């Protein structure tokens, strides 16, 4: 027990990094993903096609590869060449990647809303923006809660990939101690931390689902 307390310091620090990457990614990639989804379903064919290609690229290559590319290769790309420190590089990669997944969830959700909802709003004089904001998107939220819950839980665990940029997230911190002390206890503690974080998310999403259960469709 004393040993667990001893290693708590570095593990908590690692958890801090993990939580930061998680929260910043979530806060940026959800609205970004929504924008992508709206462009994807818009009638501007070129934009829609570009977004489609973007989503294919982001979902079709490993997140770790994207992160390595942004950190190591981006500085050498002509014109946009920019050297990012490790933390911003990780955030950019996570945001770009997760926005693509969120975009697909939003798109499927938006397209699952019946045409009649748009027409019902239209004949009441509502504009496209008003219809989206007041009628369609609120209903989409209810429908996408389960896949969003999945994706955010995956994000918690995906944050461990930032070790490739030599950042000390929870898992890398644990591994460091394991290698130093020749004991697997830090892994167990790290697992408990991950479980705790995903538990909070699970409960949060369950709460939202209950809130949205006040109406049936």
């Amino acid at each position, binding site marked *: 027990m004393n040993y667990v307390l001893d290693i708590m310091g570095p593990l908590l620090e690692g958890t801090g990094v993990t939580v930061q990457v998680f929260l910043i990614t979530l806060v940026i990639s959800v609205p970004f993903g929504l924008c992508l989804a709206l462009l994807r379903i818009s009638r501007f064919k070129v934009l829609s096609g570009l977004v489609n290609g973007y989503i294919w690229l982001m979902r079709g290559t490993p997140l770790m590869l994207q992160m390595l590319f942004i950190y190591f290769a981006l500085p050498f790309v002509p014109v946009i060449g920019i050297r990012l420190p490790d933390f911003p590089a990780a955030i950019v990669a996570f945001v770009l990647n997760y926005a693509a997944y969120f975009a697909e969830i939003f798109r499927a959700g938006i397209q699952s809303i*019946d045409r*009649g*909802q748009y*027409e*019902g*709003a*239209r*004949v*009441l*004089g*509502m*504009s496209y923006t*008003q219809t989206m904001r*007041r*009628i369609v998107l*609120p*209903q989409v939220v*209810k429908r996408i809660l389960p896949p969003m819950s999945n994706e955010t839980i995956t994000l918690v665990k995906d944050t461990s990939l930032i070790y490739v940029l030599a950042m000390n997230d929870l898992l890398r911190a644990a591994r460091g101690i394991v290698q130093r002390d020749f004991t697997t206890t830090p892994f167990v503690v790290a697992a408990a931390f991950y479980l705790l974080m995903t538990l909070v998310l699970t409960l949060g999403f369950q709460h939202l689902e209950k809130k949205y259960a*006040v*109406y*049936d*469709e």
Partner: protein
Amino acid sequence: MIDARDVHKRFGSLEVLKGVSLTMAKGEVLAIIGPSGSGKSTFLRCLNHLETINSGCIDIEGETLVSTVSNGICHYAPDADLRRICGKMGMVFQHFNLFPHLTVLQNIIEAPMTVKGLRREDILPRAEALLRKVGLLDKRDSYPARLSGGQKQRVAIARALAMEPDIMLFDEPTSALDPELTGEVLRAMRELAEEHMTMLVVTHEMAFAREVASRVVFMDGGEILEARPAKDLFASPEHPRTRAFLENML
């Protein structure tokens, strides 16, 4: 009120409206009857721009929604005018199209608030009066999924009326309802007619058409075959296809 001239509408190569002309005076109640697939819904949807027409002219209350010049190209009014003109018409759909995430009351006040910018407390008395009128004031805080089909349709009528339209379009408002629930919806519509609302009603309810409508329009194959006072059309249909249709309905 409504003046449609030579309206043509195609879906791909399928010509659904083959030159439909119809005029309607203020306060008139018109019923459109006809076999399914004859273009009744499409015509209604062209009037409020849910569909765009291929040629023809439509005026609403003296304002041009769409016109076609001699070269056959049709011109719609600019967007802002379109919205204003279409805003004069309310519409009730076969499948209600209520907003499931909003309560009955919220369904009714949503558009007055977002479109007209009214404050909640300003629209509330009117919304409640409308709900009382359709007999659903006690359901004001229920969600649509908890209502019967007849109740849903009455909410849809109240919702449309909350925007204070001059014209109401109904597209088979009772066709999705169990027979025992059609009466309550038809009653609400009848009351509306008695208040001299201008109404265009696509319906299979022949009794309603006969008793409430001032004129009945028979459509078949994308054309209006006859449009006459209700009692004349039912008593002595002129067109053989009207006669065949009416015989089938009885």
